[in-house]
Structures are given as structure tokens and as C-alpha cells.
């Protein structure tokens, strides 16, 4: 699948060119990043806490304006943010006065009163995320992991062509996590969605990504292409998988931790 798109710059969904950003009065947080996400491509960003991943994602989304460099989404500058990007914030960021189902339908209801088929679609999404029983609860009545799944459903409801996900699975148990990794991957493959995915879980990054970008001090210091056969339940136990993981661990200087 990826081979189809790889070469053509024209299908690049999102591209960042030498993007720099500093919070006023502080040293640069993002210090010159070049990045391309093609339609259907799945990029993972890994890096130490505080290295600038969230800031990079917000720059890509147009929530922050770069001090220099440019961010281009579908050929246009990132001034008009639209519903064609799904964003999952690092914290769930739900509206506490709306029920789960209404939180999920929020992107729809900003355009029109949700139609029954859209409500059904939202319910199905919740079902898929294991939250069908919680649709009429308020966010305050959910566990942490449940809230983060609601946020994910909200980002997916409009079937955007680009997903920017900031540690969406961090609060999930291993089993839910692996299920959702599988489902997300299937969905993005099927729809040709481009994804920029921040995670701290190396296995997750390797399982999901076509390419893992290692961020350090606001720069992408290494780009690791992950060439694995189509993911199956066995992928995680294959030697190739373990080797890719080791590569990423090495890029993160992870073997250096002493007891």
C-alpha cells in the first residue's frame, strides 16, 4: 500500500518545512523540523518526555503558528483549521456537560443536528471501543481510559483524512490497546488516512508505523523505516519485529539505563 504513494510528492497530505517554534521567552521547543505525511502513511513520533512532540503536533494541526518555516496541509497553508483533521489531545479534553454520545457527535453537531444514521455510527464507534454501555454517561462518570477512548471516537467520527494522535492509548490496558491498534491500523489502511501518532510504547510504534521518527530536543534526529509484512496477530512475536524494536530502543539510547 505504502509503495503506491511513497514516491509522489503530490499526494503528500501534510508537510512541515524547517519549522521552528519557541514559547515566548523560552528557548526553542521545535528547532527545525522537516516532515512529510503522505495519504495512507502511518508515522509514529517517539522521544523523551518534554522533547517537543506535542508542540510539533500542535504546529502540524495549526493550533500553534511556527516562528519560521511552513506547514502545508493538502497544499494549503495551515491558517484555516478544518474538520478534515482528527486530533486527539494528550488529555481527554471532553465537554463535561455533555453525555459521552454527544461528546462523540460534537464534530458533527457543529455542522448540523446529527442525523439518526450519524448517531448510529457514533454508537457503533463506541461499541468498537468497548464503550457502548457508557454512551449516556457524563465524562465525570468514566474511568481515565474510558475518557481517552471517547476522545478517540470524537476524532474518528468525521473520518478525517489526517489523524494527529497524541498518546491516544497511553491510559489503556494491554488488551484494549492491542485491539485498538489493530482496528486503527485496519481503518486507516482502508480509508487511506494519513496518521501522525505520538507514543512512548516502542512496540506500539513498531507495530503501527511505516516510519518511526525519533525526536530529540525539538529535532527529528532519526527516521527509522519499518518494513514489515502486513500486521497479523503473529507480527509481535516475529524476530523481524523484535529487531525493529531493538533498533528504535537503540535510537532512544535505551540500552544505556543501568540498574
Amino acid at each position, binding site marked *: 500500500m505504502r509503495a503506491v504513494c511513497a514516491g509522489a510528492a503530490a499526494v503528500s497530505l501534510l508537510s512541515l518545512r524547517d519549522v521552528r517554534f519557541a514559547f515566548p521567552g523560552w528557548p526553542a521547543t521545535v528547532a527545525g523540523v522537516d516532515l512529510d505525511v503522505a495519504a495512507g502513511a502511518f508515522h509514529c513520533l517517539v522521544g523523551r518526555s518534554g522533547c517537543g512532540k506535542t508542540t510539533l503536533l*500542535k504546529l502540524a*494541526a495549526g493550533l500553534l503558528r511556527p516562528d519560521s518555516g511552513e506547514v502545508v496541509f493538502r497544499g494549503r497553508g495551515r491558517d484555516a483549521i478544518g474538520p478534515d483533521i482528527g*486530533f486527539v489531545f494528550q488529555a481527554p479534553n471532553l465537554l463535561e456537560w455533555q453525555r459521552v454520545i454527544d461528546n462523540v457527535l460534537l464534530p458533527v453537531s457543529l455542522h448540523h443536528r446529527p442525523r439518526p444514521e450519524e448517531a448510529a455510527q457514533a454508537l457503533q464507534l463506541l461499541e468498537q471501543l468497548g464503550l457502548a454501555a457508557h454512551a449516556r454517561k457524563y465524562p465525570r462518570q468514566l474511568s481515565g481510559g474510558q475518557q481517552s477512548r471517547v476522545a478517540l471516537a470524537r476524532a474518528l467520527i468525521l473520518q478525517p483524512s489526517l489523524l494527529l494522535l497524541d498518546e491516544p492509548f497511553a491510559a489503556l490496558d494491554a488488551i484494549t490497546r492491542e485491539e485498538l491498534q489493530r482496528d486503527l491500523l485496519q481503518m486507516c489502511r482502508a480509508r487511506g488516512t494519513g496518521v501522525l501518532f505520538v507514543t512512548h510504547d516502542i512496540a506500539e510504534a513498531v507495530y503501527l508505523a511505516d516510519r518511526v521518527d525519533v525526536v530529540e530536543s525539538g529535532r527529528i534526529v532519526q527516521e527509522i523505516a519499518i518494513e514489515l509484512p502486513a500486521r497479523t496477530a503473529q507480527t509481535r512475536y516475529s524476530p523481524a519485529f523484535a529487531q525493529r524494536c531493538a533498533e528504535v530502543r537503540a535510537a532512544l539510547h535505551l540500552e544505556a539505563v543501568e540498574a
Partner: protein
Amino acid sequence: MTRARLASLLLLAALLAAWEAACRTLGLPKLVLPPPSAVATSLWQGLASGYFWPHLQATMLELLLGVAGGCAVGFGAGIALAESAPLRRLLMPYVVASQVVPKLALAPLFVLWFGFGMTSTVVITALICFFPLLENTLTALQQVPPERLELFRMLGATRAQTLWRLKLPSGLPGILAGLRVAVVLALVGAVVGEFIGASRGLGALVIASQGTMDTSLMFAVLVLIAALGMSVYQATLLLERWLLLPFTRNS
């Protein structure tokens, strides 16, 4: 709930008893402080004879119109000023000026502009009650957590949508605190408006009863005013409880 109400009633009874006792033992002239019994008699007479009704009606109508107008303006202006910093800097001095200038002194001008009768009182009422709602709306709308604002930007929400779907719901508790102050001030506004340019209404009655130094009648009218105030306040509380259901509901 019932216990609190009981306690409240007991406290009221105790206060009234103390007041009555003070009047009797100190031998205070009625003119200085009428005993509750005299006030009660006046109140009963006024109600039974129908003397109070047209005045009560007039005040209630003015209150209603004034609250509606004042809250609409206060809410609208609060939104406008919260959304536009230049507008805020431009207009806020005038808003403050409109508040500190005593309406009582301007009442003749209102009469000049709005004529006699209800209109000027309603305008005074609205003018008095719009300010707390404005201030609270202004503050509440600016207190939205920034990450929610980012969410709405991300969803491509228009400014109006961000306002209606995000800022207003999330500022609701603060706005409603302003509303509570506003309805209470509105009643004061209506009554004070009637002090000057009205021949009807509870405010006019207060002045009239002062003119005849009928302090027990005056206190009876004040009791009516207080009762009216408490009912609108209670109504606001009910409205508030209903509006805040999504924030409190647990099932």
C-alpha cells in the same frame, strides 16, 4: 430541606418576638419602629381590602419587563465585550459611568425621554440590573480552559459556535451567579424608579406611607417587597438548578 425551612421559620419567629418585645419594653413610638403586630395588621388590611393589589401588580410587571430587558442587554453586552477587547476598552468606562451615576438623580431625564408611567421605571430597572450580569458574563466567558478552546479551533468551529457550544455552557455557573444578583437588584431598581416618577407600584406606596408617617404601612409594604424579592430569587434558583443539571446529574 424541611428541617432547614423549619429552622428558618423558627429564626424568623424568634426575631419577630424579639422585635415585638423590644417595641413594648422600650416603649418606642410607632413612628420610630412599629411592632410586628402593627405591621401585620397593616399588611392584612392592605391585602384584604385589595389596596395593595394594583400596586403589587404594577411592580411585578415592571420587574418582569425590567429583568427581561436588563438581562438581555447585560448578557448581550457581556458577550460582546468578552469577545472584543477593543470594544471592552472603548465601552467599559461608559458602562461603569452608567452604573455609578445615581438613577434617582437622572430619573427626571428618563421621564423626559421615556415619558411617564411604566416605561421609565422599566428602563431604570433594566439599567440597574444589567451590570452584574454583564460583569459575570464577561468574566465567565474568559475563564474557559484554553485546551477546550484549542479543541474547538481544531474542530473548525466558528466564533459563534465556540461561544454558544463552549464558552456559554462552561461559564454557566458564573453567569447564573450574576443573574441572581441581577434579579435582586432589579427589584430595587423598580421600587426606586417608582419613588420618583410613578403614582402606582410598591415604591410609590412606600413614599406615600412615609408622607403620612404611617410606618406600619411602610413596613407592610417593605414586607411585600421582601416577599416578592424572595420569590423571584427562589425562581432564579430553580431555573439555575435546572440549567445546571448536566453538571450535577449522576444517572
